[in-house]
């Protein structure tokens, strides 16, 4: 084990020396490559929007401007769709109740369309 460590240390020292002894042209080319790579790094495009503190909670939202608008529009669209669905379901529910009432009644459905029927109902209920 110790011999293995000695071998690796010896080799490492030699390799370090080799790396430190690169010719100037190669060193210059490596430096140019490094600068080109750093210049190609994506820019940080984060935008912070601090949210007012409420009940002791703080958080920041990092969103690009265009992405923020797209997200808001998507949420608005989802809320609208949800409202339409709920409204439609409520209307369907009311229609269903009416149909159920008519079908369960002893009177024929045409009776409810008779104009004198409401008058008869009122008179009957007074007795």
């Amino acid at each position, binding site marked *: 084990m110790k011999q293995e460590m000695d071998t690796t240390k010896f080799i490492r020292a030699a390799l370090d020396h080799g790396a430190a002894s690169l010719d100037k*042209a190669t060193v210059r080319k490596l430096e140019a490559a490094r600068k080109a*790579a750093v210049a190609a790094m994506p820019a940080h495009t984060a935008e912070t929007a601090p949210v007012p503190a409420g009940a002791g909670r703080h958080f920041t939202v990092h969103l690009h401007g265009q992405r923020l608008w797209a997200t808001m529009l998507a949420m608005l669209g989802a809320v609208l769709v949800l409202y339409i669905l709920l409204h439609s379901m409520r209307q369907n529910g009311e229609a269903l109740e009416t149909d159920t009432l008519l079908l369960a009644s002893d009177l024929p459905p045409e009776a409810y369309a008779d104009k004198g029927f409401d008058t008869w109902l009122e008179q009957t209920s007074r007795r």
Partner: protein
Amino acid sequence: MATQQELSAFLAEVERRAFKQAAYAVRDDHVALDIVQDAMLKLAQSYGLRPAGEFPMLFQRILQNTIRDHFRRQKVRSLWTTLLSSFTSDDDKDSDPLETISPQDENVAVNPQAQLEQSQTLAIIEAALGSLPARQREAFLLRYWEDMDVAETAAAMGCSQGSVKTHCSRAVHTLAAALRKKGVGL
């Protein structure tokens, strides 16, 4: 997220070793330089916004993948390269001979014997490294030159920790035998 300064500092620290690693693998300084340039660009463009602590492993993974890509392309191009190389000259008319003088040559008058021995030892080690199987060389350099631990080396190489230990052990034994054979004492 890493800053440009952090990326620059990291690349400045690893660029020379990365170049030597690539050179040991491909045995061509020009190709090694291209490989390191590609690896640096890929790191910056694809992972530039990751935390700086992830750079060592990411860069090593990219570097090794880029080396492997080179060998894959070389298989296809080797036939044409062989045919065309007989018609081209190796002279680089744009190079300045003074630029090829390494710093150690400037100090040759100080201790020429020591410098010579050091150069010869390095040449023996580099030749032995170049003759290692690729995975053993990769494991050895990541563990003992890049100071990665076994887990990090396994992640960078995309293999198990057991494989890393096996590759490292075999590499060390092979290198030690090569040094003994050449009469290099530790």
